[in-house]
């Protein structure tokens, strides 16, 4: 036992000497790798003295209260204290070795180091004192017990600094601070004191303060910052690239001049970018954040660094029952979010807005932060009610009878930051009054008497508030009118037809012709009322309005359907997808639209349409028309040939006429192919329309069979 004790005593002496050596020759020592391993075991070793010392303290102070064999407590306290001292010595040496590796500096480190050393030497003293520490009554003397207690306090404090060193200073109490994250009030913050300086404070000032001033550089105040350090000025206004402070921040992490040096807390990318942007922008110490445009780099970086300052509401939530009772279909009162005390109110339905609508909110006027009153018929009385909403942030008054007399009231609302006054009677004077609200960030004045010149002037005067004027028709925007609308849509009629023309844009003058000539704004008739058409007529119409480019021409050719046929039989079957209304399609007086799948077209793919027409009484005919669709890109062509056979019945039918329609190079929409025929006493007609098979060279889908689409047959 004695041998072990003396062995440890020798080790202890050796360790204490080594400790002193390390403390004195700190800067001159190079640590071999083997000892570095010992150094890195510091976080492991430190637990031994903690436990042992606490046990020693407990036993020494409370031995009287414990039932123990005689002499046991004394032997035990000595053994514990001895073991504490030895382990503390190991821990201190390991700690000093670890510190030699670099990367540990600053106040936490210094406190930790010297408290650790103090702990070692104080415990050594107590160990030496132990032999004489027993009092006359059998217990330890007060001095010894006090010494152990002090040791315990040092232990806790040193341990705390050590933990702060590895885990960060706020580690311990961070959970308590949760939710109270530092925020930034965008409206009042200034760039240097609220954005740049906090970064310097956190990352630079531990070495570059007025007390430490490494390299002669002090960053703690603006004057010193401009003066610079031993290497000269660090800041060149407007030139981030030439500023030493930026250069050092950007050096490689292993470079000897790199700031902050390796091992120290580094700047975040956004922080670095923010300092650079601030220097580049001229390093103005007083510039307010709100004066920067919304897309400014500094502003955006500020938002990246600080979560947007959520409005912190300093009022209690309103009674949920009252809030519920205020809700009607025309007044919606809702909390901004779950568990938020703030309320947002919207009004709907101007016919249901009454004098009490707004006033009813009085019980919750502290909680309301946003009101939408757009389009509501507000009255003078509402003006005074608005004043009572002291926590109002957002107010929408678009399209209300609000005028300049309201502006004094509005400028009294202390926290207002967004105000919409579009389509109101407000003027420049009123706007000026509103702009005096310091918290105001955006104001919307589109469609008011305020013009661009006034806004530009006020915007310069109040750079912190965005004044939104919106779209103004300055007369420079000249757009083409859209097409006039000709009704009815269908091109076919039995005897006569009323044609109605209109245009979607109010105030458009419609000029039209019915003789096939192009309409113009001078010679053509002005459309005033519906007109009657009784024969094949091409209606061409254009719209005109001052300040607009005239519309393009709308054309519709109306065709009388001629002799009605009593029935029609399709001898070939149309494609399954385009069956229209069967054979009735050919005499339903409805024309197919631009969409070939609208159910008004009969479609045939690579096959003829053969239709047999029957008449109740014998007729004489001069023309047979087939109305077809043309859309070459989707393979819809007119027929290559149309043949008309006719006679008294099917057996006696002979060829009455045929036509090969011209194939125009570009063709859209539809046309009526008129086949001149001559026949008398006709009771039966067979019409064959043959598609192009194949489509000729030079046209879309050449070589493939063509589609034909037919919507009506006309017999005259």
């Amino acid at each position: 036992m004695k041998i072990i004790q003396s062995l440890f005593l020798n080790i202890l002496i050796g360790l204490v000497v080594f400790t002193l050596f390390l403390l004195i020759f700190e800067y001159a020592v190079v640590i071999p790798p083997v000892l570095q391993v010992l150094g890195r075991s510091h976080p492991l070793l430190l637990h031994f003295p903690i436990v042992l010392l606490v046990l020693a303290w407990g036993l020494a102070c409370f031995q009287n209260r414990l039932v123990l064999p005689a002499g046991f407590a004394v032997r035990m306290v000595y053994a514990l204290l001895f073991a504490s001292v030895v382990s503390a010595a190991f821990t201190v040496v390991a700690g000093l070795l670890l510190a030699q590796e670099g990367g540990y500096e600053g106040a936490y480190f210094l406190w930790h180091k010297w408290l650790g050393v103090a702990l070692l030497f104080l415990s050594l003293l107590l160990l030496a004192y132990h032999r004489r520490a027993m009092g006359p009554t059998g217990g330890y003397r007060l001095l010894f017990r006090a010494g152990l207690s002090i040791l315990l306090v040092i232990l806790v404090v040193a341990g705390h600094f050590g933990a702060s060193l590895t885990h960060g200073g706020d580690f311990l109490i961070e959970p308590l601070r949760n939710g109270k994250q530092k925020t930034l009030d965008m409206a009042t913050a200034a760039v240097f004191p609220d954005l740049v300086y906090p970064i310097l404070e956190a990352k630079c000032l531990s070495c570059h303060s007025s007390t430490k001033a490494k390299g002669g550089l002090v960053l703690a105040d603006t004057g010193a910052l401009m003066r610079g350090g031993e290497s000269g000025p660090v800041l060149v206004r407007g030139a981030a690239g030439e500023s030493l402070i930026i250069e050092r921040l950007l050096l490689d992490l292993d470079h000897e001049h790199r700031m902050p040096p390796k091992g120290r807390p580094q700047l975040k990318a956004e922080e670095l970018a923010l300092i650079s942007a601030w220097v580049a922008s001229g390093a103005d110490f007083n510039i307010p954040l709100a004066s920067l445009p919304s897309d400014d780099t500094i502003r955006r970086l500020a938002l990246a660094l600080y979560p947007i300052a959520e409005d912190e509401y300093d009022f209690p939530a309103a009674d949920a029952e009252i809030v519920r009772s205020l809700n009607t279909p025309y007044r919606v009162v809702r909390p901004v979010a779950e568990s938020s005390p703030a309320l947002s109110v919207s009004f709907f339905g101007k016919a249901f807005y009454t004098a009490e609508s707004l006033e009813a909110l009085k019980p919750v006027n502290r909680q309301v932060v946003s009101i939408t009153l757009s389009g509501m018929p507000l009255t003078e009385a509402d003006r005074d009610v608005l004043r009572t909403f002291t926590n109002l942030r957002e107010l929408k008054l678009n399209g209300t009878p609000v005028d300049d007399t309201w502006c004094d009231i509005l400028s009294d609302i202390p926290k207002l930051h967004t105000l919409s006054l579009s389509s109101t009677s407000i003027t420049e004077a009123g706007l000026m009054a509103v702009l005096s609200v310091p918290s105001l960030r955006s104001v919307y004045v589109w469609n008011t008497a305020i013009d661009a010149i006034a806004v530009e002037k006020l915007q310069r005067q109040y750079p912190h508030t965005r004044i939104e004027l919106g779209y103004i028709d300055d007369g420079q925007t000249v757009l083409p009118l859209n097409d006039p609308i000709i009704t009815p849509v269908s091109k076919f009629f039995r005897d006569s037809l009323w044609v109605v023309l209109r245009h979607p844009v109010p105030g458009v003058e419609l000029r039209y012709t019915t003789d096939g000539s192009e309409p113009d704004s001078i010679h053509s008739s002005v459309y005033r009322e519906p007109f009657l058409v009784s024969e094949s007529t091409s209606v061409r119409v254009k719209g005109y309005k001052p300040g607009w480019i005239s519309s393009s021409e709308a054309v519709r050719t109306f065709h009388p359907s001629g002799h009605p046929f009593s029935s029609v039989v399709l001898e070939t079957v149309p494609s399954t997808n385009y069956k229209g209304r069967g054979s009735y399609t050919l005499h339903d007086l409805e024309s197919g639209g631009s969409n070939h799948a609208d159910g008004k077209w009969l479609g045939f793919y690579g096959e003829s349409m053969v239709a047999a027409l029957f008449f109740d009484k014998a007729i004489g005919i001069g023309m047979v028309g087939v109305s077809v669709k043309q859309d070459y890109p989707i393979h819809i062509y007119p027929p290559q040939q149309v043949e008309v056979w006719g006679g008294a019945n099917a057996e006696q039918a002979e060829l009455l006429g045929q036509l090969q329609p011209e194939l125009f190079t570009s063709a859209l929409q539809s046309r009526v192919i008129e086949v001149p025929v001559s026949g008398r006493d006709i009771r039966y007609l067979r019409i064959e329309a043959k598609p192009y098979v194949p489509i000729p060279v030079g046209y879309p889908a050449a070589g493939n069979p063509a589609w034909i689409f037919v919507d009506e047959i006309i017999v005259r």
Partner: protein
Amino acid sequence: MNKDKVIEKEVEQARLYQNRRQFLSKLSIGIGSAALGSLLIPDLFSGKGTGGDRGVSMLPHFAPKAKRVIYLFQSGGVSQLESFDPKPKLREMMGEDLPESVRGGQRLTGMTASQATFPLVGSYYDFAQYGKSGAWVSSVFPYMANVVDDLCIIRSLHTDAINHDPAITFFQTGAQQGNRPSMGAWLSYGLGSENQNLPAFCVLVSKGRGNGQGVYAKLWTNGFLDSVHQGVQFMGGPDPVLYLSDPSGTDRISRRALFDKLAELNGLQFDAFGDPEITAKVQQYEMAYRMQTSVPEVTDLAKEPDHIIKLYGPDCLVPGTYAANCLLARKLSENGVRFVQLYHQGWDQHDSLPGQMALQAKDVDQASAALVTDLKQRGLLDETLVIWGGEFGRTNYCQGNLAYNNYGRDHHPRCFSVWMAGGGIKPGVVYGETDEFGYNIIKDPVHVHDFHATILHQLGLDHEKLTYRHLGRRYRLTDVAGTIVKDILV
């Protein structure tokens, strides 16, 4: 027991929602699972909740940036290479074969899978940079180019589907197969209606002149959610909402009397049975009654001033056009409609792309830009999220015959461009990057699930907590994926 007694007991149980046996069996399972649950999910009893069904709250989880969404869906798949993602390399390599290393085994549609070669084709249209942000926009979108500083263009969206129906269903519902609730239905379920006089989820459909694909009610379905969350389609004709007008010969007074009597009878039934569905039904009747006044008010475009007509273009007065739908979308949104879903068909340019795309662009360009401007000038853009884009992109190689002025492009899922504006999304930003071939994403990919998660986040909803229990498990719009794209948030 006689029949009446049996029924009485049923009603009693329904009122209590459970009987003794159910109570005891639930209790025993309940305590065990609560203990296990609290170990596995530490937040379980913290009061924050881990996403039970929404129930009555219908409030955002946290303060929202956006209150409403207008989604301008460009159905068919707009070519990113002719809109927002210029690739000069494709013009240089015109007609050369797409290297297999770039294609990387991408699954192709039946339309080009059998093509012997994949000749690269550059944009027929020129691009230029616009605005302070200097974003590139193609010459077919002059109006959008003007408002580019209000837009956040995402060039790196990608999807899993390669054909229209699965792709558009995926965008709308977060799953390719259908039967899940549409995004608007999720929002209606999560946030409720802002205006009790209009549906929370409205749908507007228009058709362009290009090759189109169908859109159908499956896309705005409520899926397994309550049917009140289904999208309500507004039509272009005289009857914007079907079955809303009174039958001829009925006036407002008799209609009111009818509803009052009906509510009285339903009230009796509710007192007897306590079925909450009865109350829901009464509320639906009341809403329909109110919609009879609110809908004509909103859909009346005749009172829009002249400069609004110039802003959107004169087509905004022609019901059923894209421009008219944009104007209507603004009015619905202004009146508190949570989610306005537009569809514009005709972007499926398998051939004749240069001709067709110019026509398509002409139909949507001015009104899309106008909507952004119009919301902005009323102070509504900050709280309204506008989204513009299709279900996938188009290939960098030509489908069919290739000429510099006439070519087609097939479907491409690996990258495409959409833009967002307002609603707390960074303006004047181009996000994500594709390779010089415009085929693969090389930076900041955004998957459809990420896109959904971001939209919900802007509306104050945690996409992991907005859930609905169905068929034994909880469902989310983002299924089991989705990361919020923080970089594009203001």
